[in-house]
């Protein structure tokens, strides 16, 4: 997996990208809070918010198709919960409210994460006095996230290609085998993570950490 497959547009050059990260984070916060607090009857506001977001998206030069794909990918998570609301009285209205609000919020967050590198967000967090230990944890997590996902996929593939299993999918024995295999892969991944953490600590010391 590529290290920046999700925030790969974070390093584009555009007026939006050049804004300070702290400002963008603050604006996104305000945007999300306003969207959530507005009643549905204030539909002119929602249109205004949407128009602003579309303008920002155009200025940011992020491909439209990418934005649309991200939204379509994320929308099921929202709708999955929202559908439950249709079975209550007045459900259609609640559903519409939730749908409009969460879609606008999603677009705001997708724009934020694709115009601001995660490292810049971390710097803002450090600046607003989020405890150093937590920021360090976030930074290390971001750095090793894709390394570990890659490692997990490699182990899973290697294991699947080396071991026998009944072929019919849905087969009881096959399913048990898959679960056991997954247990071993995740266990091995944890062991490797702790070993890697020890090596990282040695490397941090060697570079004069603390």
């Amino acid at each position: 997996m590529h290290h920046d497959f999700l925030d790969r547009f974070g390093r584009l050059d555009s007026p939006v990208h050049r804004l300070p990260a702290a400002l963008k984070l603050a604006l996104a916060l305000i945007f999300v809070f306003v969207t959530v607090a507005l009643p549905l009857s204030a539909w002119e506001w929602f249109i205004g918010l949407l128009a602003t977001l579309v303008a920002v998206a155009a200025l940011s030069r992020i491909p439209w198709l990418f934005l649309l794909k991200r939204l379509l990918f994320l929308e099921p998570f929202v709708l999955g919960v929202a559908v439950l609301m249709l079975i209550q009285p007045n459900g259609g209205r609640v559903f519409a409210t939730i749908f409009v609000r969460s879609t606008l919020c999603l677009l705001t967050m997708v724009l934020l994460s694709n115009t601001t590198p995660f490292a810049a967000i971390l710097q803002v967090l450090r600046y607003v006095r989020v405890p150093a230990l937590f920021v360090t944890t976030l930074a290390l997590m971001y750095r090793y996230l894709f390394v570990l996902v890659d490692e997990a996929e490699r182990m899973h593939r290697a294991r699947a290609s080396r071991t026998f299993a009944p072929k019919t999918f849905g087969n009881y024995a096959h399913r048990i085998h898959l679960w056991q295999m997954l247990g071993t892969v995740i266990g091995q991944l944890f062991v490797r993570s702790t070993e890697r953490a020890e090596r990282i600590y040695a490397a941090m010391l060697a570079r004069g950490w603390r």
Partner: protein
Amino acid sequence: MHIPDGFLDAKTAVASAVLSAAGVGVALRQARKTLPARRVPLLGLAAAFVFAAQMLNFPVAGGTSGHLIGATLVAVLLGPSAAAIALAAVLVVQCFLFNDGGLTALGANIFNMAIVATLVGYGVYRLVRRFVPGQRGLILAAAFASWCSTVVAAISCAGQLAISGTMPWSVSFPAMVGVHMLIGIGEGLITALVILAIARLRADLLGDAALSVAAPVTTFVGLGLVAALGLALFVSPFACKWPDGLEKVAATLGFEYHAIEKPLLAAPIPDYTLPGIHSAVVATALAGVIGTVVAFALAFVLVRVLIPRPTSESH
């Protein structure tokens, strides 16, 4: 269980943000005091590990697939404070980078999955281990604790949705808890398999050395207070006839205005006004007890399957 933006009202979002900040603060304080310096990178790596493990899907019935949540697994492996920090980091990255879970709901998501889930998981794990020793106890405790942690986190989530007026408790509770009672079985099974695999690969990681990462008693009390307070605010108004704690807090803090907006959003049916509620409470409680007993029995069967008798006697 990631709540998106737009599902929580202001008072719930603020209350859970304050609670989760307090909880993560307690965990960070404990970690700074008790975590050896060489363990610091492990927090980040544990967070990355949870994230990577969540990406591995396993088949569940009917063509659907599930994935590990990991709160109990990390709590068992690294202790509650490290687990709360790691899970909170996972949720922050999921919110900012993957846009999974809303920004206004970040506090609620951290409260449910990083604080309640790790605390309940760790608490049940320690309790069961005290009574059942050896490797059998390890597997039994891990499986049952994972189930409990998943279900209690879902109850907390249902409470937040209901108290926000998004969904009446009579809908959110059965939907969330029913689904997560099933998801919890998968979580328990996979957690037990992972712990067993680690016991075979590097048993030393499961020893007391791993658990000494956290100072159990103080962390437990600190996180326990935060979790109990949150559950009292979000869930107790529905579970019994106690006064609505969160409304009171909202009124005293002065952001009651949102309650005026509420009728516009939804017409929640507070189930305690319905006739025959007494029997409904009893029925819910009974279902909960039966579900818990069944989960424990399943965990017990799992131990029987995974650890043959002769091996366990030699331990």
